[in-house]
Structures are given as structure tokens and as C-alpha cells.
């Protein structure tokens, strides 16, 4: 019986079995940012412990970065304090840092791949739940908390329990106007927001194999929204092509050796899985969330469910409808939006911006809608500007901002106000997520956000793509 990629990587990185029964797992790449690391460095200082492998940690700043005025010191004193702490910590402990002043700053899950730091066969940890994104490369990547950030800094290891593997195979091809975001929202709707607890999700099948790396990252990014701490795609030619020439990827003969090893780390054809789920990619339509967790979504042609619907968790549906102030049985299309946000580690890469720009090209954002595009990194922003995407967005009435997490979680000045409804390409529609305790989030693909911005309401983007 063959092995899964998860098992191969796990075995290779296992240091020993701890007396507690957990695995001591070596972490090949540790990514850090300003929000979940300062306390970890303070704990190291208090204990007089140094960073064991500083060359295996890489830092950036993303959550608190203002996307309009980035001059230092920041207007927000707390944000400035966090920024300064990360600068001091990286300097003191000898950690590489894509600081705001460099051209490599951006959301941690965007810059890791784009710099070639993220590679197949690695274990990757970061104090952020969307670290599952990096699994798109065939890495075992997962989010951790601050005390675990301390553990990785001190030892480059974690004490962790192994996971089961569920293979999710997406057959056939996606229709036009249907994206990786729609597939992952469908998967979470089907398996539930806690269906993945205890599992790593392996995504495969023809629809996934055809996806670009950007799309695979979108899929893996939202694994955690389905309860799966890890999501991954087996590495293939698409992966290797993406990595070739990246600043931290191997080059020349080393790249050829790396490619052979990367290929060997993919799940074996006869690998045993703890569970297998299959779905038909051609049956998926653009999806939109109507509730307060990412599992609460419908196809854009469908209606908002009722608490009494068969199979529905009535209490959860009722609570969501009350918070959203939506009517059971109403079509989701036509829901008025106040804000349109294209951004986040889920959907702010170059191909996401291209798809959104295709929709808004020659159009105007509806008069009552506040719309912004926040590129995932400075590199994405620069590449988009080289293609003129910023001009398309600005001509349509979108604001064109600097790179960061922005309105996905509103730790910078970008936020919802009051009861605003936001069409968002981000990953969480939790109560209060976008900065207003009563604000409302509708998750969808970047193209669907663009369509909603223009129409002023939720609308099927397939009618707007030529």
C-alpha cells in the first residue's frame, strides 16, 4: 500500500515520539508577522533562549499595515508599536524581514509562494490559520498559536498529533465564471465547517489538476474554514513551472534535482485514504454566503434557506438570518451591497485581480457602493500596474490601495461601518469580522465581487463575462 504526501512529509520531519505521545515535528519553513509573534519573542527573552535556526524563519508585516498612508510612524500608535516590535525582534534575532520599505512586503501567504520560500515537501508553520494556503505546493502547512511560535523559534519543532487524510476529488471541468473560490465554498457547504476536524484535505481530480497555482492556493487557504487545519494539492508540472526562477527557489542543476524529489513526495497512486469524497466540478455555480460562517452559502441562482428546511441546523440558520436580517426563501441574487472588497490571502493574487478587472472593464461601480482593491503584495500590485489593471479599476470607481490584509479582518483603518453589507473576496463572514460588530459579509469570488460592485447587488457574474 502506498503513502500519502502527508504521511511522507510527516515521517521525514519526525524527530521523535515525545513522552506525551505526540510527535516532535521539524518545521522546514516558519513564517511570522506582527500580530502573533511579539509575545513569543518576549517569552524567549525572559527564558534566555535564542532562535535555533534563524535562517528557517522569514518575517513580513501585513495585518496592521495601512493601505492608504504608509508613512512612519503610523497614525495608529498601537499599529506603530507592533511594527516597531517586529523590526526590533528581527534585527535582534537575525531573522530575514520583508519590511514595509522593501519591495517584497505583502500578506504572508502571498509573499511566501511568490518568493519561492514555499516549496513542495516542506513542513510550514505560521501563527495564522490560513497557513493552509501553502499546501497548494504539496507542503504540509498549518496555523499555530503564539506559544507554538515560541516553540518553533526556540527549537524549530512542534509537539503535535498526526492527522487523517480525506481525499476530495473534483471531477470534470469548471464552467466559465466559476472559480476555485466557488469550489471550496461548495465543499465547505457540503462537508460542514467542522467536517474537517482531525483531517488534512487532499484536493485532486481533473478540475483541481487544471487549476493554476493561484487557484490551488485559494482552495487550500479555506481548508481551515471547513475545520481542516491542513489542505494540500500534490505537486505537478504546474507547481514546478510556478517555482522556476523565484528568488528563493533552487536554480540550475539544483532545480532539476529538486524537481525529482518534489515529484517523489506526491501521494502514491495506491495510497490509502481515511476518507474519499467526490464532486462534479461542472455542476458548481458561483456561490455566495448568506450567513455567519463560511459553510452557509448557496449557488447564486438559489434561495436563502429557512430554519425549517430539511437537513438544516435550524438554530444556526435562525441565528444567521436574524444577524444578517435576511428573509428565508428570498433569492440571494438581488441582495443589495454597500461595500465591495477585492483582497485578502484568499483572493488578492494577480489572476484574481485580472478576473475582477475583466468584469469591471468599461463599467462603473454603482453610486451607493464603496469599492476597493487591496493587492496581496507589493509584487502583485506592481505586476497589476504593469498590465494597467489599476487604471481599469480606478476608471470604474474602485480605490487602488497598498498591500495588506486590510478589510478581511479590519486591523488597519479599512473597515465596515454599522450595518453595511460587504461583497468580499475574503475568507470569513463571522459576526464582526470586518471591523463593525454589526457589519455583514457576503463571501464570493473576486469576479462576483466585481459584478456586485457594478450592479450594486449580488448578481450572477456569468451574465457579465463576454
Amino acid at each position, binding site marked *: 500500500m502506498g503513502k500519502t504526501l502527508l504521511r511522507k512529509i510527516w515521517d521525514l520531519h519526525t524527530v521523535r515520539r515525545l513522552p506525551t505521545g505526540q510527535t516532535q515535528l521539524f518545521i522546514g519553513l516558519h513564517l511570522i508577522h506582527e500580530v502573533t509573534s511579539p509575545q513569543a519573542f518576549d517569552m524567549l527573552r525572559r527564558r534566555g533562549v535564542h532562535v535555533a535556526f534563524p535562517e528557517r524563519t522569514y518575517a513580513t508585516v501585513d495585518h496592521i499595515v495601512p493601505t492608504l498612508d504608509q508613512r512612519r510612524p503610523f497614525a495608529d500608535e498601537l499599529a506603530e508599536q507592533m511594527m516597531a516590535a517586529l523590526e526590533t525582534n528581527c534585527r535582534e534575532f537575525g531573522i530575514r524581514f520583508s519590511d514595509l520599505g522593501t519591495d517584497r512586503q505583502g500578506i504572508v501567504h502571498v509573499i511566501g509562494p511568490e518568493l519561492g520560500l514555499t516549496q513542495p515537501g516542506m513542513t510550514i508553520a505560521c501563527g495564522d490559520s490560513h497557513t493552509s494556503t501553502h499546501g497548494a505546493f504539496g507542503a504540509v502547512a498549518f496555523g499555530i498559536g503564539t506559544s507554538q511560535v515560541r516553540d518553533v523559534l*526556540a527549537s524549530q519543532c512542534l509537539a503535535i498529533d498526526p492527522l487523517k487524510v480525506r481525499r476530495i476529488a473534483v471531477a470534470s471541468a469548471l464552467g466559465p465564471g466559476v472559480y476555485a473560490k466557488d469550489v471550496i465554498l461548495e465543499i465547505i457547504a457540503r462537508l460542514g465547517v467542522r467536517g474537517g476536524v482531525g483531517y488534512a484535505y487532499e484536493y485532486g481530480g481533473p478540475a483541481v489538476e487544471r487549476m493554476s497555482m493561484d487557484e490551488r492556493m485559494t482552495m487550500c487557504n479555506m481548508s481551515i474554514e471547513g475545520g481542516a487545519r491542513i489542505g494540500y494539492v500534490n505537486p505537478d508540472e504546474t507547481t514546478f513551472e510556478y517555482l522556476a526562477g523565484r528568488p528563493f527557489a533552487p536554480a540550475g542543476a539544483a532545480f532539476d534535482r529538486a524537481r525529482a524529489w518534489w515529484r517523489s513526495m506526491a501521494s502514491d497512486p495506491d495510497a490509502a485514504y481515511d476518507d474519499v469524497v467526490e464532486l462534479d466540478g461542472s455542476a458548481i455555480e458561483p456561490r455566495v454566503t448568506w450567513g455567519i460562517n463560511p459553510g452557509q452559502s448557496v449557488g447564486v441562482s438559489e434561495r436563502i434557506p429557512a430554519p425549517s428546511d430539511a437537513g438544516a441546523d435550524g438554530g444556526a440558520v435562525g441565528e444567521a438570518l436574524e444577524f444578517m436580517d435576511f428573509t428565508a426563501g428570498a433569492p440571494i441574487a438581488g441582495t443589495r451591497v454597500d461595500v465591495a472588497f477585492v483582497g485578502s490571502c484568499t483572493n488578492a493574487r494577480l489572476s484574481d485581480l485580472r478576473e475582477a478587472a475583466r468584469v469591471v472593464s468599461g463599467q462603473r461601480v454603482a453610486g451607493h457602493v464603496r469599492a476597493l482593491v487591496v493587492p496581496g503584495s507589493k509584487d502583485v500590485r506592481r505586476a497589476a500596474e504593469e498590465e494597467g489593471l489599476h487604471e481599469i479599476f480606478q476608471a470604474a470607481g474602485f480605490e487602488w490601495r497598498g498591500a495588506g490584509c486590510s478589510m478581511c479582518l479590519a486591523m488597519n483603518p479599512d473597515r465596515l461601518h454599522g450595518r453595511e453589507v460587504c461583497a468580499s473576496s475574503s475568507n470569513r463572514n463571522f459576526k464582526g469580522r470586518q471591523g463593525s460588530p454589526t457589519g455583514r459579509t457576503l463571501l464570493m469570488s473576486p469576479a462576483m465581487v466585481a459584478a456586485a460592485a457594478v450592479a450594486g447587488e449580488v448578481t450572477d457574474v456569468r451574465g457579465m463575462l463576454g
Partner: protein
Amino acid sequence: MSTTDSSDRRIDRVAGTALPLRGNNIDTDRIIPARFLKAITFDGLGEHAFEDDRQSMRNHPFANPAYARASILVVNENFGSGSSREHAPQALKRRGIDACVGESFSEIFLGNATTIGLACATAAAPDVEFLMAAAERDPETPMVLSVDAQSIQAAGRTLALDMPVGVRESLLTGQWDATGLLLDDFDAVRRVAAGLPYAAGF
């Protein structure tokens, strides 16, 4: 480097009253909204636990003075889903919560809680309901949770609890703060690092 003495950190028994918090999928954004993460310490997080839910929901148990001194939080399914922010269990711990009993927990939350010595255990749905009802009927109902026995005593009954082996052992041996343990055999760490093709530049 040798393991620091962990015997004084052993956690077996949590005795106190309970705080019942009903609902599935209570995410970490609700436990501690992101704006309170804008700080370089965990200080003061306790007073902001469930800040927005306390404002917007009627009779939120975290706003009820009857549960102000509770040390055992009782929850339903998938508690602590979403963001990996350790600020969530930190806020609970600083609010006085030493143990959580629920139908299920998000994995990242469970890991974070364990690393700060906040004991989380699962119980069958009817048993969770029994504990919630007992605490709602009388907030002063005493409860005793045993990590070793994997049980909780309340209102005349002893209910079975479940914990992953690693979590249970970490708490019982006081090694939930894993740094010392992970540094115990650093030669083995170096050996694994040296065997990784990517660490050697291929």
C-alpha cells in the same frame, strides 16, 4: 539543555463553578474581536472576552454576574473555530477560565489552549446538556473535573470526558509548555534538519 522541572505545572484537577455558553461554531473572532489583538502583550485581554457578543446579545452568560467567578466553561460543537489567535484562550484564561468542556473543539484552539495550560475535554452531547442545565439552574453548582480520571462530577453525577492522549499527558506531566521538551534532544533535531534535501540546497 535539560527539561525544566515541570512537576509544579501539573494539571489534574479543576474545581469550581461552570459558565454555560450555548451555540455551535463559536469562532475566535467572537471570543476576542481582532481590534483587541492590536497589542504586543496579552495583558488585559480577559476583560474583553466576548466583548461584542456581550453588547449585542441579550443575557450573554459572560455578562451575567452570577458566572463572574466560574472556572469551567461549558460549550457545544466546534468551539474556537476560525482564526488561530492564541489571544482567544488567553482571554478566557485571564477571565478566570481554567477548563473547557464541550462537544468538540477546533484543533488549533485545542492546541493553543493546551500550550497555556487551559484544559479542554470533550463530552457526549447529553452530558454537555446536563452540565449546562445544572449551571443554568444554579450557577453555584460545584463541579470537579479530573484530567487523570477523564471525568467531571456535577449535581450528583460523574460524567465521562475524553481528551487526546497527547493533551492529557501534557497536562498531567506539566509539559504543556513544550519548549523544554522540544529542546531535550537537540542532536536529534539537528540530524533531521541535516537529512532534509531542501535544507541542504538540493
